[in-house]
């Protein structure tokens, strides 16, 4: 039996999940600014519901971003501590892929464009094809981009959309692609991170606590060097 613990605070939602070979346990709440206080309590709750301890866990999957810088670091820090302390491997799962997987899990739609409002007039963007639970095939590199001219290069398909980027930039994005809007959920869920993580783990795609890092995508725009540097 394999047991995967998953955590995510990359967007406004905070969630934790445990999956075993035959059961799933998860906690999920949209609670901006409370992630730091709630995440470990959620981990404790899903472990208790599953009647497991951290020693029973085989690997920890985490929502690596992109998303809120601080949010992604809250999960990263807690996962670093947990994984170092319990000597567990760590699996990074992107938040855009996790959102797309959530659409597939809930509706069966399998061509999905995920877009998170990245502020500063930009979105974090990814497009995916999903054929079975846990398997997410990216159709483009995940990017931070202006909304216009961002998805018109993708082939016309039976797309489904998810994420806050589609709310904020509905007009700009719909002008480029016709989509079915998934409006039930906007945020990543740790359950999807666990399911994708389990697959990645089976494929040997994991790392150590020390190398657990956030995916920011935005790297140089919010701060300016001194003249001449």
């Amino acid at each position, binding site marked *: 039996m394999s047991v995967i613990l998953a955590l995510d605070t990359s967007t406004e939602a905070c969630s934790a999940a445990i999956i075993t070979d035959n059961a799933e346990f998860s906690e999920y709440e949209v609670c901006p600014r409370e992630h*730091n206080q709630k995440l470990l309590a959620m981990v404790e709750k899903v472990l208790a519901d599953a009647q497991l301890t951290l020693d029973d866990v085989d690997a920890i999957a985490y929502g690596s971003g992109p998303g809120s810088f601080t949010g992604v670091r*809250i999960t990263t820090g807690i996962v670093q501590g*947990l994984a170092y*302390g319990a000597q567990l491997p760590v699996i990074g799962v992107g938040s855009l892929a996790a959102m797309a997987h959530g659409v597939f899990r809930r509706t069966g739609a399998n061509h999905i464009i995920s877009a998170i409002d990245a502020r500063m007039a930009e979105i974090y963007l990814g497009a995916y094809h999903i054929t079975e639970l846990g398997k997410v095939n990216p159709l483009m590199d995940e990017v931070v981009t202006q909304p216009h001219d961002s998805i018109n290069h993708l082939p016309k398909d039976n797309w489904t959309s998810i994420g806050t980027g589609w709310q904020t930039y509905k007009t700009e994005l719909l002008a480029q692609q016709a989509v079915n809007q998934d409006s039930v959920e906007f945020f990543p869920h740790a359950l999807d991170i666990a399911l994708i993580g389990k697959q990645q783990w089976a494929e040997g795609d994991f790392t150590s606590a020390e190398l657990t890092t956030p995916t920011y995508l935005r790297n140089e725009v919010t*701060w300016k060097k001194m003249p001449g540097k």
Partner: protein
Amino acid sequence: MRILGIETSCDETGIAVYDDELGLLSHQLYSQVKLHADYGGVVPELASRDHVRKTLPLIDAALEESGSTKNDIDAIAYTAGPGLVGALLVGSTIARGLAFAWQKPVVPVHHMEGHLLAPMLEEEQPEYPFIALLVSGGHTLLVEVKQLGDYTILGESIDDAVGEAFDKTAKIMGLEYPGGPRLAKLAELGEKGVYRFPRPMTDRPGLDFSFSGLKTFAANTLRAEGGMDNTNEQTKANIAFAFQEAAVDTLLIKCKRALKQTGLKRIVIAGGVSANVHLRAALGDLMKKLGGQVYYPRTEFCTDNGAMIAYAGMQRFKAGHVSNDAVVKPRWPITELLAM
């Protein structure tokens, strides 16, 4: 008992292991100074990103250096504030994740209490009560320490911290970040008596400080001499000398008042600016004259470090001040701390 201390409140990652019988067993420090130099100051987002990379490897190194495994560690202490919120969160989340995995209690530590108690890591320790002068890039505080955990703020800066004034003046003089220590070095080449800077807020009673005017005074003096590009090195050194003389003198005047007001004879100085040679010498002379004594941490523990957090954490741990509350406090008056 043994405690792991984690400091990530600003631009240094500091990790240490302290044992209440054996003393400090290890301390590891990574300074981000070079990272921020190109920006002329600490960039909070970059600081947070670097702490994420450095904290765990330093924890690993500190545990190994001290010969400790999880079974030897009784508690985990981390800086909960004050400081940069994003930077604080890195230390706090890693501490709490690790404590969850190890099933150990967690002790949130006040950064300034860490500085204040840093001299306790030395062989010669002050007895309570004493006056503490905490001087750094973020703080200028005069505190009456009646006993461990019982603090009264006697005075603080109403604008720039003294270290901040050093850094800003250095920037005006064209010195690279972090300019404070460079300005102090330049001052060594300066001549006494060429310029006379004011001693802000010393012409009235009270123990508060103001240092932003000194920076403006330096800028005006430099401009009157022809500006940065037309002023020779000796003139710049003379300005640096006069600035440092005024800053140190102002601190000294307030310390003297605080000692008189409280009747105490012991003073502790800590924080980054406490490494300033001129300040140390001046306070030493003052205390000799008053028949008292001045106490400092060793130079490496003047700036932010994990050792002081581990030490303060151990005192809090012994007093039972463990907490499951994961909140970090970017602003946190030292007077809100519980007595021990």
